């Protein structure tokens, strides 16, 4: 859905591109002559019906306001700007510009002097006021465009926790962060990426907690990007990862301000991209992808339990189908006798070898899931009925697929939903297939080889210089505190160690609550 909506804008960008090429005088200063300037802009915006040119006379001088319809607040422009300027009042001729600036009841008003800044300003929704006889123009901060209101995040729901989610508008998103972290140490650096989209990317971090080299590295990587447009955070992600071939995500994306703030407080940096509700967190480790915000909001016992469960189901969703294939085709002696006999009975008459059966069913399941996401909600339920009925029952009754395989595939499916981050779930879903093939080739030894390959890959992987398997494999201090278990908040006195310099102490020591504490 999103893609379909976005495409036309890309086309528009292309038309834009041609116009710009006709005028090489892009970065030159504005001319004194209003005629020349408007000429330039109208040729730039030819065939753009949404660009409005309004010419008028102010204090005997000609003036033009240029803005794009829908991006600027027309009502305010009319009431506050035009009304003031068209007033018969005299303007101070000695410092004409200053007097205009002083008259206009707009807080965000800037003097600009080049064509390119004018273009940027128009594109961002700030109307540009050009006045005859001056080499400078005004950018009037009257941006107003339609935006989605703040809603509950769709992809990351939670029972307990704030219900605000990021929106597509960057200004709203940064404001959400500022509302949570009030210390001025919260910094936001802006970088523009994309030749045509000129997307604003904000690197936000907390000064003093974050490693300075990390920010430099992120800036370097962002500046290296030379693409035509950024439509989603994924574009940025794929250009700044450490290992582009890895199936594992090396940045975490989230649309929850509380998750972002938690990461900021742990000394990570966050990239917020205009036009998408998803922000990127860097660096991440494999284990941080298994943390969910509610682990911290609920009691630590529950957090620990749920997290252990997640890792268990990670193993299940990665290896269950392949272990099933390995056991039923290589190591039948491992199955308890009674179970083997019922397995053998249900396999009897199934025409496919177990490995083919497994791959077939897994693919069918993936297809069902994919179809379920893409289809409109009304049709989606039909898909699930057909899927459950046809694949679940009919296939077994017809003797094409064995019943245990259906059970295995469904358990695997459920297990893969246990992962709190969708992106790592995708990696797991994909990796399942090569593992099944290896299992069909060498049995459990093949599964182990696959595990070794995954471990080697994860050991090699780094996310912005920090080991991906940290802190487990690097054996840092307090490595258990936030990986497989979630220690009580009052015990997590240090931040996870990322790279080099960091601010280790998170909170005061000896915070364990108790009845006698307050009396002291």
């Amino acid at each position, binding site marked *: 859905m999103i893609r379909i909506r976005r495409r036309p804008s890309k086309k528009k960008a292309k038309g834009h591109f041609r116009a710009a090429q006709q005028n090489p005088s892009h970065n030159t200063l504005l001319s004194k002559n209003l005629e020349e300037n408007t000429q330039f802009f109208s040729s730039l915006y030819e065939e753009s019906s949404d660009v409005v040119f309004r010419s008028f006379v102010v204090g005997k001088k000609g003036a033009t306001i240029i803005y794009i319809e829908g991006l600027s607040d027309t009502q305010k422009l009319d009431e506050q700007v035009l009304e003031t300027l068209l007033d018969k009042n005299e303007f101070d001729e000695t410092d004409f510009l200053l007097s205009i600036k002083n008259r206009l009841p707009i807080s965000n008003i800037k003097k600009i002097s080049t064509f390119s800044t004018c273009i940027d300003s128009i594109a961002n929704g700030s109307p540009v006021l050009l006045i005859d006889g001056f080499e400078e123009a005004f950018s009037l901060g009257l941006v107003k465009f339609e935006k989605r209101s703040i809603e509950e995040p769709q992809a990351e729901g939670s029972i307990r926790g704030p219900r605000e989610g990021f929106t597509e508008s960057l200004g709203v998103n940064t404001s959400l962060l500022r509302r949570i972290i009030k210390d001025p140490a919260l910094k936001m650096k802006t970088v523009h990426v994309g030749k045509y989209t000129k997307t604003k990317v904000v690197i936000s971090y907390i000064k003093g907690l974050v490693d300075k080299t990390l920010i430099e590295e992120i800036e370097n990587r962002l500046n290296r990007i030379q693409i035509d447009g950024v439509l989603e955070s994924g574009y940025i992600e794929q250009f700044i990862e450490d290992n582009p071939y890895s199936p594992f995500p090396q940045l975490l994306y989230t649309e929850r301000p509380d998750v972002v703030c938690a990461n900021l407080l742990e000394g990570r940096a966050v990239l917020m991209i205009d036009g998408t509700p998803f922000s990127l967190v860097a660096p991440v480790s494999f284990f941080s992808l298994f943390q969910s915000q509610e682990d911290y909001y609920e009691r630590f016992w529950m957090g620990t339990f749920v997290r252990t469960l997640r890792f268990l189901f990670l193993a299940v969703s990665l290896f269950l189908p392949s272990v099933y294939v390995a056991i*039923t*085709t*290589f190591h*039948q*002696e*491992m199955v308890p*006798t009674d179970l*083997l*006999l*019922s*397995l*053998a*009975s*249900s*396999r*009897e*008459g*199934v025409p496919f*070898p*177990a490995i083919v059966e497994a791959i077939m069913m897994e693919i069918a399941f993936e297809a069902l899931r994919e179809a379920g996401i893409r289809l409109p909600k009304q049709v989606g339920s039909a898909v699930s009925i057909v899927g459950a009925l046809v694949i679940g029952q009919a296939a077994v009754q017809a003797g094409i697929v064995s019943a245990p395989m259906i059970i295995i595939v469904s358990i695997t499916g459920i297990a893969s939903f246990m992962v709190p981050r969708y992106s790592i779930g995708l990696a797991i879903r994909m990796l399942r297939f090569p593992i099944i*093939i*290896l299992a*069909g*080739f*060498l*049995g459990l030894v093949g599964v182990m080889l696959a595990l070794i390959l995954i471990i080697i890959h994860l050991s090699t992987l780094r996310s912005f210089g920090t080991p991906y398997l940290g802190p487990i494999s690097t054996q840092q201090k307090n490595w258990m505190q936030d990986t497989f278990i979630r220690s009580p908040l009052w015990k997590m006195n240090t931040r996870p160690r990322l790279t080099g310099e960091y601010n280790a102490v998170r909170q005061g020591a000896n915070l364990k609550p108790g009845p006698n504490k307050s009396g002291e």
Partner: protein
Amino acid sequence: MKKSILVMLCCCYLTLTGCWDRVEMQDLAIITAAAIDRLEDGKTRISVQLFIPRAITSGETGEDPSLGSTFVREATGENLANAISMLQMNVPRKLFWGQCKVFIFGIELAKNGIRKQIDYLIRHPGPRDNSFLYVSEDEAKELLTLVPPLERYSGEALKKLTQEEKGMGSTLRDVDKALMGESESVSIPYIQMLVSKEPTRKLHETIPVIEGMAIFKKEQMIGVLNKKETRGLLWLKDDMKRSTISIKLKDGDGEISMTPTSGKSKFSPEIKEHRWIMNLNITIEGDIVQNETHLDPMDKDVLLKIEKEYETALKERVAQTIEKLQQKFNADVMNFGRRFHQIYPNEWSKVKDRWDEKFPEVEVKIMVTAKVRRHGYIGPPAALPRDEVKE
């Protein structure tokens, strides 16, 4: 990119042509039990009980479940390995030994020696070390064809019978270990078909049951302990549960039966002035389960008497078994040899080679301590007027 496609193609090629060990479950002939017989001409015959997978699917397929879920197939050969390879030619699927936990030796084979067969079973990676061995009263093959009314196949029935009493069963490893060890003797359950008088619903509907213990010495079977003596052996092996002991008191008019709940037997070898003595301490605790007499076991003196009586009864039975093993069979099934070796290594090394002669001379001193722990729901005898109870 081209490189990676090439690599992927190679991997696919390898994985798809490989799979040397892959056997689909539909291609397996699951052996549930096996019987090995020696034929009159000295050949070995292997019979296996194979599971029919169709048999236990749900009723929809319309199979008659009473037909039994297994069938028996056999083959003969010069030796076991030979016979099994012949057997494979008679079965369209691959023989699968991984779940076969029951091996039955025919009595002819047992008398002739089982070492060669044991070697195959241990050497071959298919059969498991912890599968149970049995000796059948007659041809072993007959027992495989039985259709148990409760279990799915006779092998399962046999296995469950054995698992109930741990001391009873002898696994492949136990036999290997015992025949390798100091005593070179071992006991293997001796089984026969249970003959029931009730009319059966179909032919062969019965199960094999354990009738005693076959005693092996140096791979050959030399005799059988009957049921009573087998109990005695079980007590020696620390497994006393489920065997009810009944005694008759002198002044009682019936028997009192007790089921042991826990028991321990302790062997302490002793060498005194060239006399080899085995001190055997048995402590046993139990519940009274039936009281035919008019005696009240709640009474202290009566209880003491009962306990005393148990001690003598037990002592007698154990002594009987040991006597038989020592004198008749001269088979050191209780591992006296090892126990002496452990405590008296020097003396042992002297008699090591003539343990056969020494073993019958070992004096066995049996000490039994019996304790009644519980009396069940009632104290005095049931259904008896209070004034008839003797105290």
